[in-house]
């Protein structure tokens, strides 16, 4: 069994991270009835003997030792104190140690350069030390999951700095990035700059990026609220107004956290068709830089409210391909698929998956050289309270829209050189960084568009002939 380490950066990253740990604990509590520290727990948690002076890890052994104190395999980074210290006062405080935290007081001021060029190098050793401690506690480290937003300063700046650092120090370990993209009407003026600068790093150094758009999450949450009869209250800016006892973004963060939960299900539990985490990039990334995956999850309703009746199985598959269920604002059904993975959990058989693939395939366009580009996985353990669930991960050209919109917003600011001086007065930040980043994004858009043009036509290279 392999282990993964989660690195959560910035306010957004930490909030999603905490939802993930909360849900993961709930899931394990549900399946792990005898209280042993077993292999599936070991993938994301350490078992620590906290009774002793120097709390030490209890090894997995034969998976028969009692759970003592579970500690998340995580590193929490934020350049302001609020969120992180909130976590350490909240219900999850026991799963983190203070030596897993790295924080500052002043924040990055929504400036990528502050995060990447200033805080990054400043905290380099501290971050490396924390990561090293987490990595050394692993028996076989397979993956880093990095969670951060793209729009702010800390998440995008420090987050991508850490990504570079990991690529340098742990080149063999897979790096998955869950990145939250800002809405078009984001209140951070510099968010296009931050996003494009961060994307350059993601394109170069990540193995897989799972972009999530804020707007998509807001829409999903609202949709769930309307259909469950609860009034949806949204402010003019599109943010959800806080309900009773509910953190403002909990519902949205839950959805993002579930993405991680479902993606790692196979690494945590048994299944008749395991999908190891390294299989995801192997199957879904045909060309090195095109590693941005569009994701969708069904049933969605129960992610926000678990008291709803389950959907029919086939409906679950159909919904996963509708544009309302995508975690970015895009419509994969009307664009070109390069590859698609179905990760199913719960009481579902292979034949159910095959039937649904056959049923859905005619309505989807796949690129000519990969028109059977399906990767399937089956995990026996469903999410808590549901009979089954489905996560789709697709490499689809519809992502170009998200990128082009971002590019347009970036260009609008960049033409006027607006706010530029805030960036360039940071040591090590050059004007050319902007040009490189925007070129890299253009290149990516170009690659995806080129493949989109190839379309569904079968490749016509003549086969080898033998005499």
């Amino acid at each position: 069994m392999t282990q993964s380490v989660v690195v959560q950066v910035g306010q957004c990253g930490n909030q999603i991270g905490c939802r993930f740990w909360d849900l993961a604990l709930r899931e394990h509590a549900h399946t792990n009835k005898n209280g042993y520290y077993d292999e599936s727990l070991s993938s994301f948690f350490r078992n620590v003997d906290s009774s002793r002076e120097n709390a030490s890890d209890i090894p997995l052994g034969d998976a028969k030792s009692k759970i003592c104190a579970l500690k998340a395999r995580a590193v929490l980074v934020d350049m302001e104190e609020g969120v992180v210290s909130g976590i350490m006062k909240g219900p999850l405080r026991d799963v983190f140690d203070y030596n897993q935290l790295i924080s500052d007081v002043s924040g990055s001021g929504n400036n990528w350069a502050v995060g990447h060029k200033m805080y990054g190098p400043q905290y380099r050793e501290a971050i490396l030390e924390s990561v090293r401690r987490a990595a050394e506690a692993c028996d076989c480290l397979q993956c880093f999951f990095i969670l951060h937003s793209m729009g702010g300063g800390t998440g995008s700046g420090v987050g991508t700095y850490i990504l570079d650092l990991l690529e340098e120090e742990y080149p063999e370990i897979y790096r998955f990035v869950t990145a939250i993209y800002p809405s078009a009407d984001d209140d951070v003026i510099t968010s296009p700059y931050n996003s494009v600068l961060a994307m350059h790093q993601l394109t170069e150094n990540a193995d897989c990026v799972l972009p999530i758009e804020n707007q998509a999450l807001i829409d999903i949450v609202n949709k769930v609220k309307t259909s469950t009869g609860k009034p949806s209250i949204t402010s003019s800016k599109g943010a959800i107004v806080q309900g009773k006892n509910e953190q403002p973004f909990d519902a949205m963060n839950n959805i993002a956290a579930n993405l991680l939960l479902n993606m790692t299900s196979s690494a945590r539990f048994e299944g008749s068709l395991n999908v190891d985490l390294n299989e995801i990039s192997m199957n879904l990334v045909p060309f090195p830089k095109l590693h941005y995956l569009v994701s969708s999850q069904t049933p969605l309703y129960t992610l926000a409210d678990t008291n709803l009746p389950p959907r029919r199985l086939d409906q679950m598959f159909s919904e996963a391909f509708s544009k309302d269920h995508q975690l970015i604002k895009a419509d994969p059904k009307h664009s070109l698929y390069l590859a698609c993975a179905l990760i199913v959990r719960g009481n579902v058989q292979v034949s159910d998956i095959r039937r649904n693939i056959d049923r859905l395939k005619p309505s989807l366009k796949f690129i000519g050289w990969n028109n059977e580009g399906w990767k399937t996985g089956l995990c026996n353990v469903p999410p808590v309270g549901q009979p089954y669930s489905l996560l789709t991960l697709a490499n689809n050209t519809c992502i170009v829209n998200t990128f082009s919109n971002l590019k347009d917003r970036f260009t609008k600011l960049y033409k006027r050189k607006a706010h530029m001086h805030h960036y360039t007065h940071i040591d090590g930040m050059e004007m050319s960084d902007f040009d490189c980043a925007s070129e890299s994004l253009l290149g990516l858009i170009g690659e995806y568009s080129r493949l989109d043009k190839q379309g569904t036509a079968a490749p016509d290279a003549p086969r080898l002939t033998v005499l």
Partner: protein
Amino acid sequence: MSIVTVQIGQCGNQVGEQLFSTIAEDTYGKYSGVGVKDNETYKTEVEKCFFTLSEKGPPKAKAVLVDMEPKVIAQCKTNAKRSGLWSYNDSSSFCQKRGSGNNWAHGYFKHAQNASINVMELLRKEVEKCDHLGGFLVLMSLAGGTGSGVGAYLSQTIRDEFPNSFIANQIVWPYNTGEVIVQNYNAILTLSHLYNSSDAILIFENDHMQKMCTQLMGIKNISFRDINKVICHHLAGGLLRTNGFLNCNRLKTNHLGDVLEHLVSHPDYKLLTMRAIPLMSQHSKAYSSYNWPGLLKHLRQMLVANAAMEEGIDWNVKVSEGKFRTFNKSVANLMFLRGKDIASPDISAFQDSRLYPDWIPPGCALETWTQPRCFHQYEKAAIMLSNSQSPVGPLNHVISKAWGMFSSRAYVHQYTNHGMAEENFLDAFTSLEQVLKNYKDL
């Protein structure tokens, strides 16, 4: 004569566990159809072939389990123990902590090279427990990274280490619409390597197996366990011992070796497929009765029309020479008849020389081996191993899909990152196009 089984990867291990279960359930089952004494002899022979008897505890399978992650192997061992009929040797498995990630190159170049010394040591120990080694049976899939990559490498190592032993590879052919996106790459790389090291490559197509589950077994929600059961019905039907023959007369000493010797008469033709009749759910067995002429008539048409099962055979396909030949030609066939009245069947329809290429001497292409003991609770069962043109379709499909992908160089970087060169792909394409042509030209 004993067979040492090597189970590699998730698929290989699951099939292996099912194979030993099928064999054990059949052998120790009540329904034999022969006298007590004959049944005892049969039991001893089967045990000698597949198991090591121990003084305490159930018989231990002569198997080595290899996987790059521990989950599946642990599951197999538990299942076997739970059956009470047989178990695995606790020490005869090898696993690492990290899977091959569907990457053939990762399996072949990284994992296998680290694993091979340890696995060969385990294998040597298993071999030493055999009085006579009949050969190796390697179980693996084509699509994944471990089964295919590690399997290809280990087959080569076994060949180097035991140059005079028989090696048969049983491979599970992936669904046409895939489980793994890079399955066609993995498949061509595996097949081209196995063609050099293995004596025979025994193909089971997932698509066919699933159809059998739905149409013959009447299973609604098909799991991999169901599919593996069908695979193992075929496999056991061909591997379990026989003691008589209808149209040939030679002393059989090594079942596996004799099978391969008969079927693979030319090193260019190594692809084998299997057919079995009848096949039905446990529930229907009690209500069915068959006669040999009927079964053999169906089996012959399955062979001629290249059908994997009796349901929906095209009866319009006729054996006729000419420009537009449509029937399935064979290099060799081997038929196993198991059950009652096996002395009576007329097998001349399978001896028709038009079924075989003209370079095969007449009468040599078919052998029929018999066993009066009932198999798998069927009163009569016919199982056929063929070296025929059946693999042409799937092979052509896999090559053309892989070639299409390769012409765009998609996914190639994933392989070159693990120490493979683009030429390795081209070599695989070249050698398989040759194999395909050979079979087409029969």
